[in-house]
């Protein structure tokens, strides 16, 4: 195995309750996984709102330090605690797509200017025409064009246009790892499928590993190779995506699947919670338990 990314027993604790309080919140609790350079995959993270998905992504991107554990890229430490030059190297081969496109762009800078400076910096290209072609090529991949965004500020684009621009930006420097936090939450069904198909082609045709964070179980099923399901900082189930989503074993994974809204009875508001599963999930709350490995290689957290 040629390890592209190794996440080893990573923990993140935040101080909460003000500057002088020592109350701590464990946002990410002992997460480990490895991505193989020779076997690119779409590695999906699904989970509860507030379960630490974005924090984990930020640690992988070196934007947040780890409290314990380490993150290695091709064998070298790259987490926020690593030295600057290894991090700079790493930053060129891993690209983020941030969760909320409305927060991801500098509101005072025109989008095309931002893309131009990113391209020049990351690819070390000076020729304006060449830069423009690269930008336009990448915007075309997400159904946009240079002409559409030219001269515009972030607030002058729609939610979906912004989200797609963020994806195009991440593609500019041909990353070997893409960390995409909710990249299709604000686009219509048609664009969603074309972006998801694009992620697939990045994996299959360009050997890119993709960490795909989402709340959408259906697209997760459609494109993922492996999946981890998180709840309150802990991984509760991890392994091959389709077997897990077809037949989840952990009660929280089961609750997630049971809560997916259906369109079968459109117009009749089926919003009743799955109370039986919620009860089981609540009963286990606060326990850490242990991961057990199943025959199909998945790992499931179990409690005594």
């Amino acid at each position, binding site marked *: 195995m040629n390890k592209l990314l190794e996440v080893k027993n990573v923990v993140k604790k*935040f101080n*909460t*309750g*003000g500057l002088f309080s020592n109350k701590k919140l464990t946002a990410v609790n002992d997460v480990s996984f490895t991505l193989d350079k020779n076997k690119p995959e779409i590695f999906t993270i*699904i989970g*509860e*709102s*507030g*379960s630490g*998905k*974005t924090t984990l992504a930020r640690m992988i991107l070196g934007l947040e330090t780890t409290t314990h554990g380490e993150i290695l890229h091709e064998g070298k430490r790259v987490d926020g605690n690593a030295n600057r030059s290894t991090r700079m190297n790493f930053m060129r081969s891993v690209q983020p797509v941030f*969760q*909320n*496109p*409305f*927060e991801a762009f500098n509101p005072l800078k025109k989008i095309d200017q931002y893309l131009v400076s990113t391209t020049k910096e990351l690819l070390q290209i000076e020729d304006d025409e060449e830069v423009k072609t690269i930008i336009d090529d990448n915007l075309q991949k997400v*159904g946009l064009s240079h002409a559409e965004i030219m*001269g515009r500020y972030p607030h*002058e684009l*729609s*939610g*979906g*246009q912004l989200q*797609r621009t963020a994806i195009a930006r991440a593609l500019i420097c041909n990353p070997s790892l893409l960390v995409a936090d*909710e990249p299709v*939450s*604000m*686009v*219509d*069904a*048609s*664009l*969603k*499928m074309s972006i998801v*198909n694009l992620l697939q082609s990045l994996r299959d045709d360009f050997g890119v590993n993709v960490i795909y964070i989402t*709340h959408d*179980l*259906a*697209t997760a*099923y*459609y494109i993922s190779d492996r999946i981890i399901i998180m709840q309150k900082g802990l991984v509760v189930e991890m392994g091959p995506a389709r077997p897990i*989503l*077809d037949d989840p074993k952990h009660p929280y994974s089961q609750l*997630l*699947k049971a*809560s*997916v*809204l*259906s*369109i*079968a*009875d*459109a*117009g*009749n*508001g089926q*919003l*009743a*919670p799955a109370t039986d599963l*919620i009860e089981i999930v609540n009963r286990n709350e606060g326990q850490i338990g242990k991961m057990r490995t199943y025959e199909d290689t998945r790992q499931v957290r179990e409690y005594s």
Partner: protein
Amino acid sequence: MSDVLTVNKLKAYYIMNYFGTKREVRAVDNVSLTIRKNEIYGIAGESSSGKTSLIKVFAAAMRPPFEIVDGDIKFDFGDVKIDPYAEDKSKVDALRWSHFSYIMQGSMSVLNPVRKIGKTFEDFALKPMGVSKAAFKPLVIEHLEKLKLSPDILNSYPHELSGGMRQRVTIALATVCRPKFIIADEPTTALDVVVQKEVLSMIRGIQQEMGSSVVFVTHDMSVHANITDRIGIFYAGRLVEEGPTKLMFEQPKHPYTYHLVSSIPRIGDTQRRTSLEGKPPSLATPPNGCRFHPRCPIATDKCSQENPELIDIGQGRRVACFHSDKVKPLAEAIQ
């Protein structure tokens, strides 16, 4: 049933000047609709078809270069009737939060980054609620609980919360005063499906309890299926179909609606799905005739020349398509 909001032949464009040449983005192009008392009206449609622009008009949140070019809107809240664009701004602002509230897309911008969440609640909601500070806090905490948020978050700054937590805070802000008219733009995109369901059911609950009206914009058709009473579908700045939720899913009459409801991916589905052919139209230079014609599977010559009017087809439905009788029912396909 009485109408709370009446929108009449509304045209609202972004009108820009690039070095002397005028450029218009016709984001809202001749839209007429009404929102009734006691209903949830869903808005779906293509990305950049003008959904956010339209509800910015509703919420009196327009900023230059966005302007109303033609048509008008009127609110009738029962106790107050108002045309927000004919009236003094202060009069409109006095109704914000108490009569109508607006949850913006990616709405974190209402949250002041250097102010704790608890303070933000006081800034916006204390006055319209009309209670003392001491009575206010327990009410807020009770409300947060319904959104599965712990009271601790009142002491947090926005950046200390996850995306989904911030999104719920903005929903809490917009609903805590129980306004008569709630405008929500993609309010549940950052929520896991368990929390999303509870949040939707809270919104439904408040709406029913108060008999209020909600305009709910989202791309997530399964959300529309479960929370809305009626749905309006937008394509390239125009309302192309409208009707009761059940009928829109079972027998869409516009080819674009058909595409939307038939392309919803489901768990267990591994068949390669393709998207609509071609690119979304530009609103600066929209195609002639029916704006959907370059991508429509059943388009004819007429479609590329004439613009189909939105017409009443009975059962509370309106559709803008010359060949709506050729759109197949979907009832079987979505079982």
